[in-house]
């Protein structure tokens, strides 16, 4: 009896278990999904990327032809003259040749000739970011070295040679007056940011940043809402503004303005899947930083983690590890210190657009 009474019970249980099994599994699965989602949420937060218009073209983003830009960049910086084409390196444009000659002249220490040649080359192809960037970087180095040399000789007002006087701003102002494209405005804006790096006082940084943001906004607002170089540059400008200060320009922008701009860059990059791993990681890192400024530390951590997974360069990994070490109560101050350090890196200025194509 006992067996008879027990067996059905066991059997019933088994049968019952079998009968309710799908429901149970569904519950287990639902719980697991919730747990996993919670875990993922805790790990990544809301990534909060803006949507990208379906009809957006790659050309509109400024990220087309990055491969070609890299090749061109490599060739104008190479020691082999471009007007001597080899089998593997076909003859390039007259503009490229002039810029390359300018770079060669710079290497020889012939500053005046370097500047003239590069300016000639850029005038022939004013929308070429590679040429303009090379020019801007060389002028930056020359001015940086001039200031360093003046310090060595304790010269309070360094005598700026005429070819460097008020450069590169004056050149790009002229270029923009003549052509007025998004590319010329971008470089004029970046020239103002160069000024901030070389003269890091609030009294210089502030008006320079305002100038740069004004130019970049004109670019973005005028039919270029998805132009990534301008968006990223404007986002960085906002990111680098001191967070704790009451500052008239800051009052005119929402606290997440940097995250908005850089977030759009990231969203566009993901949509088209373009750019090097380093570029994407840099964007993700900056977006994380922007979220710190916006007071959303959880999201910031998510983006830093994404950046960590995207690129394994030592310096980038170290930068991310430093960020992980920051405690919440000090995170804003530590970030501002980190950004200060970044701006003071004059050997690899943050305004070098080569990051886009390298």
């Amino acid at each position: 009896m006992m067996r008879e009474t027990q067996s059905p019970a066991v059997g019933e249980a088994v049968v019952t278990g079998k009968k309710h099994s799908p429901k149970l599994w569904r519950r287990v699965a639902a719980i697991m999904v919730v747990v996993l989602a919670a875990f993922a949420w805790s790990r990544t937060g809301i990534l909060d990327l803006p949507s990208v218009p379906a009809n957006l073209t790659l050309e509109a983003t400024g990220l087309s032809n990055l491969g070609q830009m890299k090749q061109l960049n490599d060739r104008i910086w190479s020691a082999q003259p471009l007007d001597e084409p080899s089998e593997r390196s076909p003859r390039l444009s007259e503009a490229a040749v002039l810029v390359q000659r300018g770079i060669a002249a710079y290497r020889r220490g012939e500053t005046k000739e370097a500047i003239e040649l590069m300016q000639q080359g850029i005038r022939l192809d004013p929308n070429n970011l590679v040429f303009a960037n090379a020019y801007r970087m060389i002028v930056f180095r020359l001015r940086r070295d001039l200031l360093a040399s003046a310090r060595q000789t304790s010269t309070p007002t360094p005598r700026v040679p005429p070819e460097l006087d008020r450069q590169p701003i004056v050149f790009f102002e002229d270029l923009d007056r003549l052509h007025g494209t998004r590319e010329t405005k971008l470089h004029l804006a970046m020239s103002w940011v160069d000024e901030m790096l070389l003269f890091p006082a609030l009294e210089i940084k502030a008006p320079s940043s305002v100038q740069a943001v004004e130019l970049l906004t004109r670019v973005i607002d005028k039919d270029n809402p998805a132009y990534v170089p301008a968006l990223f540059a404007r986002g960085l400008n906002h990111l680098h503004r001191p967070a704790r200060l009451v500052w008239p320009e800051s009052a005119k922008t929402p606290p997440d303005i940097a995250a908005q701009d850089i977030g759009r860059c990231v969203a566009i990059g993901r949509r088209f899947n373009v750019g090097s791993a380093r570029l994407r990681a840099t964007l993700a890192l900056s977006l994380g930083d922007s979220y710190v400024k916006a007071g959303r530390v959880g999201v910031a951590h998510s983006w830093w983690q994404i950046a960590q997974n995207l690129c394994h360069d030592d310096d980038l990994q170290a930068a991310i590890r430093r960020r992980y070490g920051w405690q919440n109560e000090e995170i804003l101050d530590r970030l501002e210190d980190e950004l200060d350090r970044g701006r003071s890196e004059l050997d690899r200025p943050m305004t070098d657009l080569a990051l886009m194509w390298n």
Partner: protein
Amino acid sequence: MAAFLWAGWWWLAPRKPSDAGGDVHFEERAAAAGCRNVHTKVVLGDAFKNIMPWLSSVGAAVAAADYDNDGYPDLYVTNSGRDDRNHLFHNRGDGTFEDVTDKAGVGCTNVEGGCMHAVWADVNNDGLLDLYVTKWGARNTLYLNKGDGTFQDVSHDAGVDYWGYGNAATFLDYDRDGHIDLLLCNYFAEEVQDPRTGRRVRNDLWHPVTTRVMHETFTHARNGGHKVLYHNRGDGTFEDVTAQSGLNSGLWTLAVGAGDLNNDGWPDLYVANDFGPDELYLNTGATENPPRFRLVIDPHGHPGIGNDWWKGMNVDMGDVNNDGYLDIYVSNVLEKRYKTDEGNMLWLNCADPAAPGGRGFRNIAKVSGTMDGGWGWGCKFADFNNDGLLDIFAENGFVTGDPNQNYWYQIQEMVTQTKNQTMDAADWPAMGNRDLSGHDGKRLFMQIRPEASDSTSNEPRFREVAQRAGIVETFNGRGIAVADFNLDGTLDMYVANQGAPSCYYVNTSFRGKTQRGFLRLLLVGRPDLGVRVGGRVLASTMNAVGARVTVHTRNGIQIREVQGGMGFASQSEYAVHFGIPDLASIERITIQWPSSRVQEVVGSQARALINHHVRWVEGGEALVLNGPGPVQVSLETPRPR
């Protein structure tokens, strides 16, 4: 067992630093002591009405010195308002002062221009301190001390009646010839371009031909006033040697200080400039005759000296870490809501292979806890609690207005939007009754003595204790004079406040307690006892400006240099003061005179000077003024520093 564990923990646990500042206290007694002055501000022409609070924000100066040789430091305090006069307060020695301005004839009423600063020095080596008063928009005045309590204006005959905007001046013997020289620094340009005629005309801010008188930029303005270096000929007259001295810049100087920063025996200069980089000049006297001043810019770039934060307001020099080299404290502008990337700078004099002479300066203000001085003005190094470590008192506050209306926002908007269009005062937003870093508490940074076991750092650290120490006034402070006014062995302070009552802070730290030891030395040079060194004769001035005193102890050294006026609108007394926390550790006291003569007193004789006010005449004996009598001093072989 528990006791052993506790004892072990106690032995091994990291020591907290001593409670710095807990033992320092001041009482404000200006009114009771009879030396209270309510400073009156300068008022310029109506064309500058929109920013008059800004332009009239300086002029409260104080200079302490014993002009009548009675042993007690007296006070000279400036006023800048029209027809108002300065005050000479004679120290009676009983804790009170007597206003002797009229009798002395040094009121210097502001019939023209406005008084800005005053410095004492014995310009004719007669043993009596003379007085130089600098002004805006009027000729500066040199008063010769006649020795009978009266003074005579000899400015014109002496050749130092410069017309300009003198905000800073210091006496130094830059060529060590035994005659005190004078460096004058002007703020506004002396001349401007008349827009109607195009000609250069006198920049009279009371009757301006233009309102384009302000700084060209906030960071690199070079349209300020000139420096003027007056060389004392030794016959009662001075000659302008600026051109050949290398001091030719036109920056907006607010303060200047002289001291031997590289220990080569020759006084160097630090010039604190508004709207431009500060200037560090090294004296070339060791290799050139006559000496010149060579500008040195930190090779490491911003924010090193010469590439700093463009708002130098004050300079003071002192060996803050007792390593035998003078360090520099410069006040600057920090406002918590509006400007936090910069602040006061504590430049630690340290080895730097990249710097000229292998010595450079590293700003340790932030880590040392001395960066936040507010909108800084006069600052002074002094050992207020006699613990053998220099502390820092820092004044601050620019314009006190309605705290609910702030001019910071307007400034920043102007900085952001106008891009260097600051030169025309008419373009500036009206200040009205807006506040600009007013209402701020002063800063008393007491140096923390690390316990012997704490070897983590040999850099100084400070704790701010002003409120606790009884310094609660929130006036806009300017000049500071530090002196032992009551000869009680502790340093007191007199603070000149802009457009407000002055404060006389009497140090009461050791009232009713056992006092730590001190040494107060008044050095008297002998200009007639020159020493021939390398083809030239070096001599000390009567006030021994530039002489260096070193107290050697078992635990290290302390140094002081005699200063002829240092910092913004400030002059402390000529006597040097040391805190001596451990009498038994004293080994010897050395004086290096500007003549290159070295004297020292050792062992028990050195210790016998402690807790006394001592008058030490070059080449002679140390005379204890409040003790048993002269102490024998061994005279060393002269050797150049």
